[in-house]
């Protein structure tokens, strides 16, 4: 199979295997989305049929819009994801620059310390994180989530970005120093623009897990006004479990934003995954 170098028969088998697996991968999504546009009877009578003039219905979406505050959930998810990405990239790039650019005592040790978090999941510390957020009054605020996701994303970000920053030419930075640029300007004006592709890779890696996380919203920010889309749809579906139209519509609405993000960023994501950024 792998080296179907010439034979058309092998290439046919390769396509058959790939098409079969693609169908398996997409089938559940397809079934959920088409049925969300059908009336209740049609969902059960012909689950695999496309909605037609007779079976078409938006009743599920109407229930979702009336009952759940999905616009607010969406806004919360957006704020949390964008703010976390901003801090991961800014703080991560700054630390990566310090580690890759300057020689100082403890450099290697600091690098190792920051790398610890790549393998150890932050969830282990949940008990103490919750206590800390309660003590500082951050519980049920979006800041609690932003702080946790920033801490979670930093180790890998520092690791990937410092690899890339080592490749930025020293001549360029030294030329900047001779022209009297401060170290801060060298970082922001010269280095950051040069590592933009790496920044994009780090952003895409972090975006999806943050957007999809259920654990921390459930524990740190379960209140109605700070629910994220993932938690909001989970709670909504739990309450409307018998209303199939509403459940299917809520699922479709939750799929949509991620799918749009994926279509926009898939090239970046796949390039990042396949460029060996995670090694």
């Amino acid at each position: 199979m792998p080296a179907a170098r010439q034979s058309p028969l092998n290439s046919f088998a390769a396509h058959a295997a790939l098409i079969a697996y693609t169908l398996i991968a997409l089938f559940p999504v397809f079934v959920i989305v088409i049925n969300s546009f059908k009336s209740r009877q049609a969902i059960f009578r012909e689950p695999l049929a496309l909605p037609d003039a007779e079976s078409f219905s938006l009743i599920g979406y109407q229930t979702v819009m009336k009952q759940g505050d999905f616009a607010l959930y969406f806004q919360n998810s957006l704020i949390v994801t964008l703010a976390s990405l901003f801090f991961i990239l800014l703080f991560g790039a700054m630390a990566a620059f310090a580690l890759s650019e300057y020689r100082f005592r403890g450099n290697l040790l600091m690098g190792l310390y920051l790398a610890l978090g790549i393998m150890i999941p932050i969830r282990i510390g949940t008990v103490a994180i919750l206590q800390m957020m309660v003590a500082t009054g951050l519980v049920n605020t979006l800041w609690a989530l932003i702080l946790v996701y920033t801490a979670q994303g930093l180790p890998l970000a520092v690791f990937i970005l410092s690899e890339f920053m080592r490749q930025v030419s020293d001549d360029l930075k030294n030329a900047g120093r001779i022209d009297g640029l401060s170290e801060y300007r060298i970082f922001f004006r010269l280095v950051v623009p040069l590592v933009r592709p790496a920044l994009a890779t780090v952003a895409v890696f972090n975006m999806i897990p943050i957007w999809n996380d259920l654990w921390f919203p459930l524990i740190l920010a379960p209140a109605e006004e700070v629910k994220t889309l993932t938690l909001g749809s989970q709670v909504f579906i739990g309450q409307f479990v018998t209303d199939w139209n509403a459940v299917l519509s809520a699922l479709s609405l939750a799929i949509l934003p991620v799918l749009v993000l994926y279509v926009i960023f898939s090239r970046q994501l796949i390039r990042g995954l396949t460029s060996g950024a995670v090694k």
Partner: protein
Amino acid sequence: MSESRPRIRWHIVVFLAPAVLVYTAVMILPLFDTLRLALYDEVEGERVFVGLANFRILFGDPLWSDAFWNALANNFWFFLIHMAVQNPIGIALAAILSHPRLRFAALYRSAIFIPTILSFVIVGFAWKLILSPIWGIAPGMLDAIGLRSLFAPWLGREETALTTLALISVWQFVGIPMMLIYAALLSIPEEILEAGECDGVTGLSAFWKIKLPLILPAIGIISILTFVGNFNAFDLIYAAQGALAGPDFSTDILGTLLYRTFFGFQLQLGDPHMGSAVASAMFAVILIGVCIYLFGIQTRIRRYQL
């Protein structure tokens, strides 16, 4: 300041400070604080040091240890299914995709990766509906190929629920090994494969004899990523089966056990100290896994300079 002592270069401090502060305050300190809390208990409203008593209860007191060992065993089964199903499928897909003259490769790659980007909530509920005997999609499809009798409410039965959930998780995450192995396969220089062809090593045997040894390091990385991910899993089980990990705790894993212990559910009150003990046990399992990988596997895998 005298000349002999180096000046503090403040810009280094400024560059490092935000990342180190956030990382230390929100990740490292809570981690150690959680390990510390596992050694305490609350007696009459006051926190008292109890040493390893919580762990003795967790590992030895039938009230707790049954749940703990059950969750740990389930978690290992969950991990084994991933290793046995997800990674071979991922490698096979990557091997097919990496064929140089395959058309539509980018399209297949993007489509197969779609489940990976969906949230556990979507995946859990979507499969729950599809496998539901009420809706009848799964029995209907089996009926179409004459295998109706094979259908059972897989998620509702104790014997099959955990395996079914593990396979759903495999379905979701196959994209990750596929992408990483695909990258590793693409980095194999063409000359090596051509040299193999000259010696008559083509097709499947080229895969087993040339490519597979070269991608072993990537397979090692995938295995440890899978291990850490599985022993830290929670969301899918919670979304599909709820915090009680039913039926009758047959799908309970360490993540759901931690959640119930820490937060409580229904009649049981949450207990931060026992919760910390469960979290510490998770930490130990993950640490042991990572150490086995770093010292036992990674150093033994032969790396070829390409």
